């Protein structure tokens, strides 16, 4: 049960916070343990979703696998913990997980008062609305008086209130802990509208019994940069998670992917040589093996591969790259250079 989990997490936080932890110890602890503890969502197709065999798939999952490839040279050295929106931040604060990769929005209060560090953006998203076609609603501005299902403890909950208040509309919010409960309530008619990040709406829709009866409204009411999060204060660990992400974006930029990575090692391009550990010692700087970046690309793939495989054309979601295209192709994905 969730209250129980929250309580446990809080108790663990109290104990962890009162224990004697030292800065920079996170990376050593992880290396000693031999695997990464990664917090993911409790079931969101395309981002983190366990298939019938219990294997996790999705962008958020691949980020953790990439970090494992970086640290251990083996992408399978991850233990996934499914978390609800409400549990996730406490779980990270308390040290129950090493990294939270769970479509979590980067905000100022999470970065400051809540003691976290966002390592980058894996997916540029925005909040939208999913409604039943029968209602005949064409725009979010027509939602005055609607009952809206939303996940508790999210930025979505706050944006929703802001949006209705700014447009002087009456709102009845029903906040559930689990996204599945919201979806069930939308189907049953307990709420008129389901609101969430747009990517989630598409993912939720394919889980409904009759996806065709539902439509995503055109309005995007917020900025939702989603990315992995680590605890404040573990700088070495923070650097590794951050740069794992940058490596994947840089790899796409340089045309390196999981299939051609061995071949590209022979490339004359110095950028590619540095990325793949052929030249320089970029591994030592991070306290990792010299070819860790190559391992990430080989075992998990570059950003474009990960995107297409999980949410893009290679998946049932068929989401366009849009904002998530590389900067050179009109998107926002841009990584600092490896040098």
């Amino acid at each position, binding site marked *: 049960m969730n209250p129980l989990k929250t*309580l446990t997490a809080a108790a663990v936080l109290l104990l962890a916070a009162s224990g004697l932890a030292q800065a920079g110890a996170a990376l050593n602890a992880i290396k000693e343990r031999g695997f990464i503890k990664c917090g993911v969502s409790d079931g969101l197709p395309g981002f983190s979703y366990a298939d019938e065999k219990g294997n996790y798939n999705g962008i958020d999952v691949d980020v953790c696998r990439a970090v494992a490839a970086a640290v251990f040279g083996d992408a399978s050295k991850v233990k996934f913990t499914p978390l609800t929106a409400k549990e996730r931040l406490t779980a990270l604060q308390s040290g129950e997980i090493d990294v939270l990769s769970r479509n979590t929005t980067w905000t100022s209060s999470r970065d400051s008062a809540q003691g976290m560090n966002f390592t980058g953006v894996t997916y540029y998203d925005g909040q939208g609305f999913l409604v039943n076609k029968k209602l005949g609603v064409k725009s979010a501005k027509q939602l005055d008086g609607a009952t809206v299902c939303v996940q508790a403890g999210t930025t979505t909950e706050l944006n929703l*209130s802001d949006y209705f208040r700014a447009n002087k509309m009456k709102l009845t919010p029903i906040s559930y802990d689990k996204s599945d409960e919201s979806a069930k309530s939308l189907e049953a008619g307990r709420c008129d509208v389901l609101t969430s990040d747009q990517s989630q709406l598409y993912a939720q829709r394919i889980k409904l019994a009759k996806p065709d009866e539902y439509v995503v409204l055109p309005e995007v009411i917020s900025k939702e940069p989603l990315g992995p999060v680590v605890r404040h204060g573990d700088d070495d660990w923070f650097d590794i998670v951050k740069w794992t992400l940058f490596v994947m974006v840089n790899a796409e930029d340089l045309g390196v992917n999981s299939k051609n990575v061995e071949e590209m090692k022979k490339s004359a391009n110095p950028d590619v040589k540095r990325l793949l550990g052929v030249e320089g010692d970029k591994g030592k700087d991070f306290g990792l093996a010299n070819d860790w970046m190559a391992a990430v690309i080989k075992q998990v793939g570059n950003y474009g591969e990960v995107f297409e495989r999980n949410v893009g054309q290679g998946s049932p979601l068929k989401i366009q790259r849009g904002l998530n295209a590389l900067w050179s192709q009109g998107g926002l994905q841009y990584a600092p250079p490896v040098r």
Partner: protein
Amino acid sequence: MAEPISTPVKPPFWNNPQVRAILFQAIALVVTVAFGLYVFDNTQTNLRRLGIASGFDFLSSPSGFDVVQSLIPYSPTSSYGRVFWVALLNTLLVSALGIVLATLIGFVIGIARLSKNWLISRLALVYIETFRNIPLLLQIFFWYFAVLRAMPSPRQSLSLGEAVFLNIRGLYLPAPEFQIGFGWVLAAFGLAAALAWLAARWARRRQRATGQQFPILSVSLALLLGLPSLTFWLAGSPLVWQLPELQGFNFRGGWVVIPEMASLLLALTLYTATFIAEIVRAGIQAVSHGQTEASLSLGLNSSLTLRLIILPQALRVIIPPLTNQYLNLTKNSSLAAAIGYPDLVSAFAGTVLNQTGQAIECIAITMTVYLTISLLISLMMNGYNRRVALVER
């Protein structure tokens, strides 16, 4: 001349049992306090190291989110502290209603369980054994996801005289709007209550003195209903009903009982009532059968026997375990979080905790509140228990 008596050597102070007892207690106290201080200081240090804000300042910053049910005025611009009160009142509301309903149902079922009518006692037995043996959380899910989800959509609401509507969004009731002059009606009600009390006192005295009975129940009812109604009519009906109306997506106006609250209340009530029924049955059976026989042979009928002889004695046995059930019900109301009813655990220890990230503070406040509520209930029930307890002469 006195013999020089060899005075016994005074034992050292640490061999004095009294001094020793105090010493050990003092050491235990110092160690406990020191440990508490150590944990507190360490927590503070480490929270600072992790860059997590601490303290209770967050309670005054604006919450920014809406809450579906609030007994006091609330908007997203209200503070987190306000959310706390909203959530606390929601918890108290569902607990208080649950306690009243569970007690009523429990007493009725408990007595029915002892009925000589085979069908009634068996039905009571089946009810008790079914609801007592299914986990409460499962029952909440049953009412919420199975029963109340089967209600029609707002446009196809079941309605009663175009005033009461039932649909998947809840039960919509007309809300009273008090006009000027309604104060007189309230005053009349107060007056009637005072008169009824005086009449009851007079009737009791007269019965004690002369043995004559007075139909006090019907007279009191007539007073309580008649006087306010008359005033209501004289004051020109100072009350209008605001009817719920279908506007756009939902009904607006009137009062609404949301399904989250209804299913939680149903489950809590029906579950706890089974335990209360068993307590009531045990309490009644604890009264010796000789009491009933004596009462019947004095000429009291069976309902008077139950009311005047058996229940007062049974209550002595019933009250202490009943208190436990009240405490259980209140604490069980925290399962609300599972279906999105905004109670203390769901809205405060859940949403507020998450939006602020101040887990330790939120959980500490919540635990303190539950402890306080439980202790208050115990205190009240213990007071009542002292009143009904056997006074030995």
